[in-house]
């Protein structure tokens, strides 16, 4: 990323409270997407919402960015209510949606100009800001190219800088690394960290990838089925496992069988078992005799143990420990809305 720095319109003073969410509820018909959620995010903090797809993370971001109305409860940003003072809130926030907010038939510059002009930024300021932002994400070369010809990584960078046009004090990122290659994901993460460090922008990021949450967030709220199940720093969350009597074991059994997995799961001192790949099991267990009883159980089902190690717990383990299921269990439930391209519009690129 470039060395250009961003200057927020208002300098952040102190580390007060920026976002307050109280008993927030959102229902779609009978389906409760968000059920009674409360949390506070401080100024200049990077706050993560971690959970599987369909857990209600996106809905929370949509409510906070005035794109959806809460069914019940309140939320405020910088002291402004998201329902009653929506236009004030809109000036304070920027949202990087899961969907790419850009027009394929406009150039990079035209896209940014269009969205920026809706914020009443003076023309020369806006022009300058667009140049700075494009430079920041290394898209200056493609300034006058149609966005429809961009790669996914380039599009996501466009998507991020679009949200920065109004120099928001609060930035919402909804699954910013979804569908990106590892290289682009790293770039986006570094960009977000730098933005937070340089400008003190408060950031809420939703993700179902543990790496994002672990690397980016000061604090993480773990969300499952519309409820916050835990909220703390990454290391404190991990201590939920290691701080108690629990340990995380990685066992390599070359001849794994379903019966063996169930047998281990049935043990009294085993909290949870997840199968990592065809030979590896990850077991969260407690008690002094955990090692022995697991070894006994594996051998009882005819398993041969190639290796067994005590590993550091990850956020994934924390999620499993807290909810009893894995993040990816329900991660594929939501079918992404494919863009309707219509008659003769099947081609991805625009000629």
């Amino acid at each position, binding site marked *: 990323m470039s060395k250009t720095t961003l200057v927020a319109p208002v300098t952040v003073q102190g580390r007060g409270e920026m976002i307050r969410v109280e008993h927030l509820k959102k229902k779609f018909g009978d389906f409760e997407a968000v059920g009674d959620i409360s949390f506070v995010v401080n100024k200049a903090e990077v706050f993560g919402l971690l959970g599987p797809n369909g857990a209600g993370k996106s809905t929370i971001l949509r409510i906070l960015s005035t794109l959806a109305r809460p069914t019940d409860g309140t939320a405020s940003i910088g002291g402004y209510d998201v329902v009653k003072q929506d236009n004030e809130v*809109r000036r304070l926030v920027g949202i990087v949606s899961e969907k790419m907010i850009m*027009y394929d038939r406009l150039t990079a510059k035209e896209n940014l100009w269009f*969205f920026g002009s809706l*914020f009443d930024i003076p023309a020369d300021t806006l022009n300058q800001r667009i140049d700075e932002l494009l430079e920041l994400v290394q898209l200056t070369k493609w300034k006058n190219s149609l966005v429809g010809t961009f790669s996914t990584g380039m599009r996501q960078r466009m998507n991020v800088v679009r949200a920065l046009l109004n120099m928001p004090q609060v930035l919402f990122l909804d699954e910013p690394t979804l569908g990106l290659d590892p290289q682009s994901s790293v770039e986006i993460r570094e960009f977000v960290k730098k933005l937070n460090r340089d400008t003190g922008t408060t950031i809420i990021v939703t993700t179902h990838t543990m790496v994002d949450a672990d690397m980016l967030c000061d604090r993480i709220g773990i969300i499952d089925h519309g409820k916050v199940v835990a909220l703390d720093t990454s290391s404190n969350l991990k201590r939920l496992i290691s701080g108690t009597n629990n340990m995380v074991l990685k066992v390599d059994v070359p001849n794994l069988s379903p019966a063996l997995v169930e047998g281990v799961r049935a043990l009294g001192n085993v909290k949870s078992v997840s199968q990592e790949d065809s030979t590896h099991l990850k077991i969260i267990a407690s008690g002094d005799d955990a090692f022995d009883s697991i070894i006994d159980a594996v051998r009882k089902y005819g398993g041969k143990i190639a290796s067994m190690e005590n590993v550091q717990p990850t956020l994934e383990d924390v999620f499993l420990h807290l909810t009893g299921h894995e993040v990816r269990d329900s991660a594929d439930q939501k079918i992404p809305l494919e863009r*309707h391209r219509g008659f003769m519009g099947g081609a991805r690129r625009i000629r």
Partner: protein
Amino acid sequence: MANRDLLSHSFRIAWKDVVELYRNKFGLVLLIVMPIFMMGMVGFIYPSNTNSGNNLPVGVVNLDGGNSNSTLASQAFISVLQQINTKTSMFKLTTLSSESALKDSIQRGDLEGGIIIPSNFSASLLSGKQGTVTIMTDTSNPQVSATIQTLLSAVFNEMSTGMAQQKVMALDPTIGSNGAIAIVQPLKVVTQGIVPGSSNYFEFVAPGIMAMTVMMSVMTGLPGAISQEKEVGTMDGMMVAPISRLSIILGKTLAQTARGLLQGVILMILAVTLFGVTIQGNILLVFGLMLLGVFSFVGLGIVLTSITSDQQTATMLMTTIMFPMMFLSGVFFPIQQMPWYMQDVSRMLPLSYATDALRKVVVLGAGIPDIATDLTILISFGIVMTAIAVPVFRRAMTR
């Protein structure tokens, strides 16, 4: 200040839509081709002079045995028919031997109709009775059937009058041909419209098609423009900006109106250059009416788009509403021809008033005072629908 912002935001949104449309070359071509098809279709299907046949193939069956001593009355009849036809070339006459041969030819589609002169034709005329001529038509094609009936009846009527005129003159030679015609046909009908020139069906239909196309363009364009942005997600980009929701509606509408007007202008140029429609009224008033038509429709379009979940449903709903509207609004058939309950339905559709007003201006050269009622209704409809549309849209977008 707030109003200026509202307008400037709408213009930016409209500009963006127009640029997108302009860069979509295939869509642009379709946009221009559609009115050409529309006008071409209607213009050529309904020729300007509807009551003249154009070399319609008609068979003639002469079964008249007559009287060997005198010239057959039927032959004289046929030669007069041929004389008239040579002048007007309405029919292509073919002689056939029997009634069944004529029937076969009509069934095969070789002929559109036929004339049958019965065997007692000459005998009846000579004995002072009425001579009967039968017209046979292809009743499966009512349009052509009616044309043939009308044309032949007119020809026979003319021949019949001529024969009666001669008979009267024979009875009293002093009376003269003018006196004779006054006895045979005491009344003569002359038709005159209130504007110069003869009117035709196309002049009736053209203004309606203009109104309809502009509105259809907006009605089908809006669900595309709004639902698609909603689905793709770009609508969020506008919704998170601190702008009035009305300016989003206005901007979208402006772009759609520009699109509709482009089609309207193409239609108008075609109607004038190819099909001889003359615009009697003020051309600015014509444009003003098309704009007003759009305004009256937009609210309805926004409401329908807002209550549907996706683009496909929105388009389907729009088509469902557009079709009856096309036929009930007097675009193709005069409202006065419909049964009273249908007329009542028609009176609830804004397109009826737009069509009516546009027709009056184009065909009759009407000015604003003449169409004040239409204008009032269109403006009120537009205001009411827009007032409903804004909150519905706001709710739908922040679900």
